[in-house]
């Protein structure tokens, strides 16, 4: 390791760098002359080299260190680290993407990367590999975050440029450097920015959006009832407004926007600002400034807030899926379907969550005694913001409204009721799934009007040599281990291996996803055999013909 760093130091020294301490080099790029009239001074910190990427700080441009205003607005891959006063911001050069400890990443390499970075900036010619599409003008290094929705952003985009709009934003009451706590009654903007402690306390800012259910929910979950409120200014900059540093941004705002006549009570001023980023894409930034900035009476002070937004993903499984049975397996299917962004999920189960279900079901202890279908619909709706995607229904409603059914009901009788009575002449596909004790054998059968029926599958098991063998193997394996555990009250419960249950759920969801894309199936049945200690199941699939001796064929 030491040899490593000494080599790098020697190489950098050869390129004119000098070491200000053990691991920090200071030097000029290019070593001599300039590129299109530009040269820079940088420091290269080699802490934990080579495992940690060298940290490169821009110190001067053409010998001047007033970077906060000097950095050209079209320069890129430069990250501003701001600590309240934007005049004191540190600018990190981002030119070592995908760093890893490699012998060829030596002192010369680091120098060349900085050289290329400067060259790209002054010529505006970027090598696509160096130019990450995710790059933002202003980075978001802070622990406090503001949550925005698509709806909010869309509204913001419609706003007239240069006009100040306002919105209420909820957040935790501020805590002060003095140790005191803000009152809930007082608006958040009525405190001095410099008094608020943003170091030890993280705040979550949630705009007041009564029309958006998800914001009501995160407000309740994140902030509870005891939350404070601030007035934020919302602003869209004209497309031609370009800047690179916080200082430049604040100057644009102050010189172009009318923010006079503020109430004397306002001590800090929170902003949400939309501007046009480097590649013509909209970017949003949020920060809180001091009153003195607006009045022009003191230095600018800035506390940035990181912005997060909830993705509005396209529908992944474009089907209405009816789940008959949302027990151990069915609830996992429901939970995955929600995460797959399924168009609509109908849940049917007459059962209530029992004590022995805890740990064998998606639902946890707080739903004990609740009806599984209703509780699961609510739980998934709220956790994943799928307010319209889930509904608890009856079997009949599910059968009527769904494009496809998944049957994972609890016992043979209910299974037979569905298979040979309620769904006997059903015209839409049905996925039947069940599992043995210890999940040693898991079976999925898909019946459609063009396949055999579920009983044809039972008939096939008796005659198909491979299926017969799998059943026999499973029988032998199941026999070797206890199938039931008896609880303290003497009630028996079948033993499940939950990771295999989850696996089976993934397979059902994959089948649904394929059906959604292609309108057909890859097979009519699939078996997964797991020896007790197997980590990988052995799959076997096939097609299900109407069996001549099945009663569906009059046999």
């Amino acid at each position, binding site marked *: 390791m030491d040899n490593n760093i000494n080599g790098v130091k020697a190489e950098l020294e050869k390129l004119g760098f000098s070491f200000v301490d053990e691991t920090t080099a200071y030097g000029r790029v290019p070593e001599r002359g300039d590129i299109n009239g530009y040269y820079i001074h940088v420091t290269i910190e080699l802490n934990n080299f080579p495992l940690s990427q060298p940290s490169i700080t821009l110190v001067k441009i053409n010998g001047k260190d007033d970077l906060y205003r000097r950095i050209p607005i079209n320069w890129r891959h430069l990250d501003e680290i701001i600590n309240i006063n934007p005049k004191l911001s540190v600018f990190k050069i981002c030119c070592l993407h995908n760093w890893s400890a490699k012998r060829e990443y030596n002192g010369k390499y680091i120098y060349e990367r900085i050289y290329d970075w400067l060259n790209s900036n002054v010529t505006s010619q970027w090598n696509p590999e160096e130019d990450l599409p995710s790059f933002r003008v202003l980075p978001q290094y802070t622990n406090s975050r503001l949550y925005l929705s698509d709806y909010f952003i869309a509204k913001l985009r419609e706003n007239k440029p240069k006009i100040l709009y306002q919105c209420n934003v909820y957040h935790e009451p501020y805590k002060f450097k003095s140790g005191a706590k803000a009152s809930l009654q007082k608006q958040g903007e009525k405190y001095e920015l410099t008094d608020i402690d943003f170091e030890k306390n993280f705040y979550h800012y949630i705009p007041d959006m009564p029309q958006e259910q998800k914001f009501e929910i995160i407000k309740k979950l994140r902030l509870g009832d005891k939350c404070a409120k601030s007035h934020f200014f919302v602003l869209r900059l004209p497309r031609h407004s370009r800047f690179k540093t916080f200082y430049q941004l604040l100057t644009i705002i102050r010189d172009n926007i009318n923010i006079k006549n503020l109430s004397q009570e306002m001590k800090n001023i929170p902003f949400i600002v939309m501007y046009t980023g480097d590649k013509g894409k909209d970017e949003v930034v949020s920060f809180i400034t001091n009153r003195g900035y607006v009045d022009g009476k003191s230095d600018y002070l800035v506390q940035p807030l990181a912005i997060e937004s909830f993705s509005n993903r396209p529908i992944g499984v474009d089907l209405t899926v009816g789940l008959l049975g949302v027990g151990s397996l069915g609830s996992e299917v429901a939970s995955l379907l929600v995460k797959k962004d399924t168009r609509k999920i109908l849940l049917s189960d007459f059962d209530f969550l029992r004590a022995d279900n805890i740990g064998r079901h998606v639902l946890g202890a707080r739903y004990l005694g609740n009806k599984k279908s209703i509780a699961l619909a609510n739980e998934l709706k709220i956790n994943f913001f799928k307010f319209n995607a889930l509904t608890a229904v009856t079997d009949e409603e599910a059968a009527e409204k769904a494009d496809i059914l998944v049957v994972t009901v609890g016992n043979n009788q209910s299974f037979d009721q569905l298979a040979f009575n309620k769904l006997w002449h059903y015209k839409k596909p049905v996925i039947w799934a069940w599992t*043995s004790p210890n999940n040693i054998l898991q079976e999925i059968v898909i019946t459609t009007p063009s396949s055999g029926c579920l*009983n044809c599958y039972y008939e096939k098991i008796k005659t198909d040599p491979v299926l017969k063998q799998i059943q026999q193997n499973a029988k032998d394996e199941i026999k070797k281990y206890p199938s039931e555990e008896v609880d303290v009250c003497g009630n028996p419960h079948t033993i499940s291996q939950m990771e295999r249950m989850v696996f089976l759920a993934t397979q059902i969801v994959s089948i649904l996803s394929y059906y959604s894309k292609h309108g057909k199936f890859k097979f009519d049945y699939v078996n997964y055999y797991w020896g007790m200690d197997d980590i990988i199941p052995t799959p076997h699939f096939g097609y299900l013909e109407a069996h001549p001796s099945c*009663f569906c064929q009059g046999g």
Partner: protein
Amino acid sequence: MKASKYLSIVQKNPRYRVNYNPIYAILEGLYVQKSSEELQHKYLINEIINEELTKDFKIGGHPDYDYLLNEIKEEKDFYNENNQVANVKLCSLFIDLRNFTKRALFVQDPGIETIQEIAKLKQKAISTWIKLARYYQGHIHSITGDGLMVLIGGKKPEDEDEWTIGARAFLIALRVLESADFLNDELKQTLIEKGKESYATNSHNLLNIKVGIEYSPETLMNPQGVIVNINGEKKPVGEVKATAFEIDFSAKLLGYYNDAEKKLDGSPKYGRILLFGEKYKELMDFNDEIDVVYLSEYSRQMFDTTQTRKLYYMDCKELKYNIITLEDVAKKCNVYNASETAKNVSINIAREEKIQHG
């Protein structure tokens, strides 16, 4: 919309639901393993084909009507209508390697291909088509110079629905056109290995396959041949033939191949054209998603009468590799399922195991 009982045929015969292209199972073998799903599908398809090639497989005649020849005791029996079957619904599919004969002309000069290589290429094509035809339960009526005549239809349960007969012919035709891609890839590879890369890019040096289909709803199945005398015993020698204008028309269609090819856009142009007659068009009733193009008219005079038949073609470029199951074909036709629903009889569940549900 046309009523068809195709679903009840699919229900009893799972090969028509297999959602994997048999051309991969036949031509890639089991060596190229991309995934365990593919491998299992290849096994499954090869099992079906192997069974078809052992179970009363023969070339010539028609297995459902070959018994007619056994009825022949003497010459006049050939003419006896009791030894014939009329009004048989068949699809006639004619496959031919285009411009193949000329390849053998160049074995000496320039001597790029040997006669053995040419024979091997043809054998590979013919055997692939036979396997494909049998997979979709077609019968090899005859092997011609560079091609094959396949009859689809007969007395088996899968032949009970006439649209399904046409759909099976369609699936065979698509697979045969796909085989052109595989055979040409192999041919190009061989030319490259021989250092003749420039020939591999010129389509004139590659293979092309012509496919024609016509539907013959009123076919006469009749034994043809002679009576021979072996050790004093009279025996018929010959085979059962399908007689109808439409049966032979599938071969005639191939004569219009060049006219159709001229109308194609893009390249390559090989393995794309399916030619068919008006009876087949009527049978299939393709919907708007399929571009059926009118090509020409076949017209003949006899007995002071003019008879004409229309010819059509379709470009299968977008259909190849996409239409795999019988239900995929149904989605491209104006057809609906008219299978009877199962009758209710006493329920007797065959499940044995004690199972735990989810």
